[in-house]
Each structure stands twice: as structure tokens, then as C-alpha cells.
């Protein structure tokens, strides 16, 4: 084994160690930073495993559960599995002002953590953009002009 070959071997070994180290670090960090996409049912099925990790909880806003205190920027509502009357749902607390489209029955995704007390603490609230791109159907959604003129009966807008 001459000097060049030895050097090359040392270099390859060093690279292999560095690559393995990077792999371990990358995959290690991956686990800690995973965000789980769950529906209310799926999250409840996880049991105690759902307490701790960051979760994106997707579902629909259960009708009649929106409580908004503008002066304290405190929002509370239930995210339900679907729009059925008896669907499984989870209480969500948020410190955010709800966006314009937020209303009863709309699809939402909240990101946050689920406490052992059974409350989902959200730090990010996203309303599902209907990715379908089409004109609103009759009676499907109120016109913005109505929103502007009507009273805030649906408790949508603060």
C-alpha cells in the first residue's frame, strides 16, 4: 500500500463517517419535527400518543360552536370529523383572529398540540380554500356585499 492509496482510503473512510453522521442527524431531527395530519377520529384513536407532537388537525367547524371574544382575541370552536350531527369532534382553542372565510361548517386545518386535558391548542388556523375553482352555486355562499352590509349573525366576523 503506497502513500497515495493510503491517503485515498483515509479520505474515503472520513467521508463515509461524515455521511453516516449526517444521515443519523438528519433522520434523528426528522422524527422530532414531523407534523402529523390527522382527522379528529384518527387523533383520538392515537390515545396518549397524540399528546405532544405537532398535529395538523383537519375537519369541519361544528355548527353553533364558534365562540369569539374580540377583546381578548380568544377563539374557541369544535372541529368535527364531518358535518353529521353526531360526528366525533375536538375542542380547539386559538389566540388568532379568525380569517374572513371562517364560519360554521367550513373545512379547517388547525396546527398545534393536543393536551392531555382534551383541548387542542392551535397556533395556526387555516381555512380550506375550496381548491375547486368555480363560481359559487346558488345559495351556497353569501356574497361579500351581503357580508359587508348584513349583521354578523353567523359570528364569523369579529
Amino acid at each position, binding site marked *: 500500500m503506497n502513500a*497515495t492509496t493510503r*491517503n485515498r482510503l483515509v479520505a474515503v473512510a472520513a*467521508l463515509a463517517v*461524515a455521511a453516516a453522521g*449526517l*444521515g443519523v*442527524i*438528519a*433522520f434523528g*431531527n*426528522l422524527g*422530532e*419535527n*414531523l*407534523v*402529523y*395530519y*390527522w382527522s379528529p377520529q384518527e387523533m383520538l384513536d392515537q390515545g396518549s400518543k397524540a399528546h405532544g407532537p*405537532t398535529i*395538523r388537525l383537519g375537519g369541519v367547524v361544528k355548527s353553533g360552536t364558534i365562540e369569539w371574544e*374580540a377583546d381578548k*382575541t380568544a377563539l374557541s370552536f369544535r372541529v368535527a370529523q364531518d358535518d353529521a350531527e353526531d360526528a366525533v369532534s375536538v375542542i380547539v382553542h386559538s389566540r*388568532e*383572529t*379568525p*380569517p*374572513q*372565510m*371562517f364560519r360554521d361548517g367550513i373545512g379547517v386545518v388547525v396546527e398545534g398540540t393536543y393536551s392531555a386535558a382534551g383541548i387542542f391548542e392551535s397556533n395556526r388556523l387555516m381555512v380550506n*380554500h*375550496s*381548491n*375547486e*375553482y*368555480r*363560481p*359559487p352555486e346558488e345559495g*351556497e*355562499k353569501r356574497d*361579500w356585499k351581503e*357580508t*359587508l*352590509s*348584513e*349583521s*354578523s349573525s353567523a359570528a*364569523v*366576523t*369579529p
Partner: protein
Amino acid sequence: MSLGHLGYAFVLAGLVSAGFGAVVGIAGGLRRRPSTLRWALWATFAFGAFMLAANLTMEVGLLTDDFSIRYVSQVGSTQTPTVFKIVALWSALEGSILFWGLVLGAYLTAFAFLHRRDEPVYVSLALGVMLAVATFFAFLIAGPANPFEVLPNPPLDGPGPNPLLQNHILMVIHPPMLYLGYVGMTVPFGVALAALLKGEISPSWMVPLRQWTLVAWIFLTVGIILGAWWAYAVLGWGGYWAWDPVENASLLPWLTATAFIHSTMVQERKRMLKLWTISLALASFVLTILGTFMTRSGVFNSVHSFTQSDIGPTFLVFIGILLVACIALLAARGHLLVAEDHINAPVSRETTILLNNLLFAALTFVVLVGTLHPLIAEGLFDKRVSVGAPYFNRLTLPFWVTVLFLMGVGPMLPWGRADATKVRQQFVIPALVSLVTVGIALALGLRGFYPLAVFGLAAFVTVITLRELWIPIRGRMKDGREGLWAATVGSAGRARRRFGGYVVHLGVVMIAVAVAASSAYVTHTSATLKPGQSFTLDGHTLRFEGLVTGKEPHREFVAGRLTFTPRDGGSTLELLPRMNYYETSTDPVGTPAVHETLREDVYVSLLAFDGKGHSASFNAWTFPLVSWIWWSIPLLVLGCAISLWPSRRSKAKAAAAPAAAPGSDALEKGAA
């Protein structure tokens, strides 16, 4: 015959030309028959012409609202303003693949024209490989993503392009830039594979490889920055980069292409790293295809995947073929690419470039793992997960900072063995300036390890880069008694690649400083106000005056009028964050109001409003220095233009064969 049939006929003709050219080019090249080059050239020109014709046909369809073409019925609308009708070509999947075909045709035509008199076997093989890629895309357009399908019962009107794409003028230029970057990687891929197929890389063949990669690189870079700017100016969530899979998809080939641009210098000077350099060129292309797959097949649920499609499997097969072909060729021909030298000085320019390459490889790995993990988790374990931004930030930050450090050290060190005393002398001033910068930042009350490290290193790199640029200029001014301008132009002309590279480095320093400052010292407030009430944001005052409504040709809007008083009490101005309502969309699309200064951006978005009480809710941020990210574009483009500028020797040749196509400056032959 309807417009749709005509367009489809052009696509089929393009497919046939590309397929024919691929077979002839590769087979003729492998048999070393120079005479077949002529056929490959004509096939390339035909492909380019048919793609142009197909795209023009689609534009005619869009502009004349011909809803019998399925694509027009999906994205067209009689209400859409003309400019958005034109750009509707790339506003949805099928059209964007068609546009891809046009860009590919333009690149291939330019390459064929500029290199038609080069070594015929090389050019024949390169064109053959590029046309094989073109065959795949023409097949996509003709089959799985056919935009020209003719509807038997055309609708009277269509929905118009996605409102998010109609919302900002940046959307007109961001996608073409990104496409020019993505598609441009096809050319270095073809050049590199031609070298592997032929089994040798002559130094003269490395020149087009390097230059075409740089052409694609600058478009990709500008495309990524414009995309970040668009996200910032349109989406209204108060940021420009979210480590979204689609953003990562554009970053991955950028990382490998950047590594390539650096390693090619070692390859050229020291005749080392040949296999590695070629691999980087191949990887950049494969990653652009992977990126397109991720963006366009709808496998990721992100804002960019506007449509679900069935092009996914076709892409996966193509990626598989690419990987097998590349690895097989590298394995079969790798032994021909042996290093003729080795690194004999641990502290030298080549070592820093080697380190730079290792860092970029590590960055690529980390980003790739984080991006693909959700796909693998869902595909194999049926788990829906995503990888949070903290993963990318925490893991890539140390690498970015080290790369910044190397950007200073590399240019300071000579090729080969360095004189220790001299290096130490050169190190003193930049290091001092760097320390003073950190001191000033601390005195201003700025804290945090990473931002301060970035500021210090940015000063370090800037001093070294400016000195490297200045020394030859000063030399010319002293010895040649030239004026400042003449000396600058003269020294830039003598070593264009070095000079241009350093100008690009200065642009990168701007980005580094802007990213560090805007993410470390961001401030955020949200408030719900009645007219007349105000809130403060990092010392500034914003008073809500009331809601206004308005109408534009293709949309109506509601805006919250805010009077902005700067913290130093200067003159007030009006900010109008708004929410746009498109005729054809169920949901409003917001547009934030941004007050931009060199020092900081004040960024306000309208979150919600209530007509009855006339109150409105706002999200507001200040982002220090953030606009420096976009204002780095002129420096980056200038640097690349200097690097690619034709040398005097080849100018005569360029004049003899005037070229109008992009990349015409790539005529430079081995100079610099």
C-alpha cells in the same frame, strides 16, 4: 379542421421529429459517423418549430376564447384581461407542459445552431440525448397531458385562470424564469451524457457544459427569488420561504448546479473531480425532473399543485429510466474519468472548493430527505405527515453559514500551495472589519448567534471580494494610466469568469444578510379595530380609517384603509391591504399592503372585516432588510452576464454567425 386539431397535429409532428432525431443522433454518434449530425440538426430545428407552432395555436385559442379546446375551457374566460389570457398558457398543468415544450425547443434550437460546427460526434450525441428528453415531453403533451383535446359541446364561457395567479404581475414572469432554469438543465445533461457516451471529455467540451449550466443557473436563481417575492407579495402570510415541497423542488437542482459551477473550476485547473463534476451535471437535471414531478403531479398538497393529474406514473417511469441510464453510464465509463492530479496543499483554493462541494452535497441530502419523507411515509406506511420548517432551518443553517465563510476564504487563497505569511497578512483587515461589524451590531442592540455570525461573515466576504475586484483595477490604473471606468472594464474583460463570479458573490452576500435580518428581527402584531382606532407596530403607528370597496375589470375588492405614521414621526402615507373577489371564485384572495424601504418592510394584510360594525382585523409585520433579497437580482444577473460575455477572440466568430436565441453568448471558446 378546428384549432384544437391543428395544435394536436403540431404536437404529433414535434413528437415524430424528436423521436427521429434522438435515434439518429445517438445511433450516429455511437457509430462515430459525422455525417448524421446534419439529420440531428434538422430534427432539432423541426422540433423547435413545431413546438413554437403548437404554442402559438394555443395562444390564438386563448385570445379568441375558443372554448372547444379543453384547456381553454378550463382556464379561459371572456372576462379575463388580455395579459392574463396570454399567461393562462402556464396557469394550469397541461398548458405548462406545452410551454415547457416551447422552452425546450428554444434551448435545443439555440444549442444546435451555436454548436453546429463543433466536433460532430459530440454534438450529434448531445442533441440525440436532448431530443430523447424532448421525445418524453412531446409524448406527455400528446398523451397524458394533452391540452388540445376538442370538446364536442363547448361551453359558452370558462372560469378563467386561478385567481392566485391573476393576483400579481410577478406571476407573469416568475414561471417562465423558473422554466428557463428547469428546462435549461437539459442542455448540460445532454452535453455531459454525450461525453460519457463518447467515453472522453476533451477540455474544449467542458466549455459548453460550463456555460450552459451557468445560463440555466441564473434563470433558476432569478426564478426562485421571484417565486419567493411572489409568495411574499401575494399570499399574505408574512413570509417568502416556507420549505414547501415545491420550493424545495426548485432548491435541489439549484444546490447541485451551484456545486457544479464551483467544482468545474477544479476540474479545469487541476484535471481532478471529473467524475464528480459530470455526476453533478446529471444530478441537476434528474432533480429538475423530480421537481417537476413533485410540482405537477399533485403528489403534494401545496398551493402550487393546482390540479390533480395522471402524469405522475409517466414521470416516475421517466425518472427511473434516467437514474438507471445515468448510473449505468457512470459505472461503465467512470474509469475514463480518472484524476490526473491530486490535492497537495491542504490550505488552497481547491480545498475550499472541495469543501464547498461537500457542503452543497450535504445540503442537497438534508433537503431531499426532508422533502421526500412525507411521500415515503404515506406510500409505504400510509401515514400522512409533513416535515416542519424547524427541521430544515436547524439542519441547514450551520451549512449555509459555513458556505458563507468559505466564500471569503476561497477567493483569498491561491491555487496550490499558499504562502502562510502572505495569507495571514491578507486575513487581518477582513477579519478586523468583520469584528467591528459584529461590535456595531451588538452596540445597536442586535442579539443572537446566527444573525451576528452572518453579519460578521458577510462583512468578511465583502471586504475580500471587493479587494479581489479592486487589486487588478488599481494595477491597471497605476501601470496603464487608465481611468477608473476603463480599468474596471479592462480588468473585467481580462478575467471575465473570475470578475463575474465575484459580482455574483456580492449578490449572494446581500441575500444572506437579508435572510438573517428579516427572519431574526421580524416583529408581528395583529389587531381588530374600529374606524379611528390605531395600533402600534414596532414603534410605527397604524390608524384604521375605514373600509373601502372598489371594482376592477376582472375583480372587486374590499380594502382596509390605514394611515401609517413612521416611528420617527416622518410623513404619513396610506396603506390599503385588500381582499379580492373574483367573479368565478368562491373564496376571496387577499393582497397585503407592503411599504418597502431599504431598511425594512412594513407588511399589513387584511384578515377579516365586518360590514355592520365596520371593524377590520389586520395582521402586521416588520421585516428588516427583506427587500435586499429581491434587489440582489441585478447583481446576480450582471455577474453571470460578465462571466458569459463572449471574448474578443470569439467575437469575430460570433459576428460571422449572428444568433438571436437565448444563450447566444455561449460562443465563448475556452477563454478566461
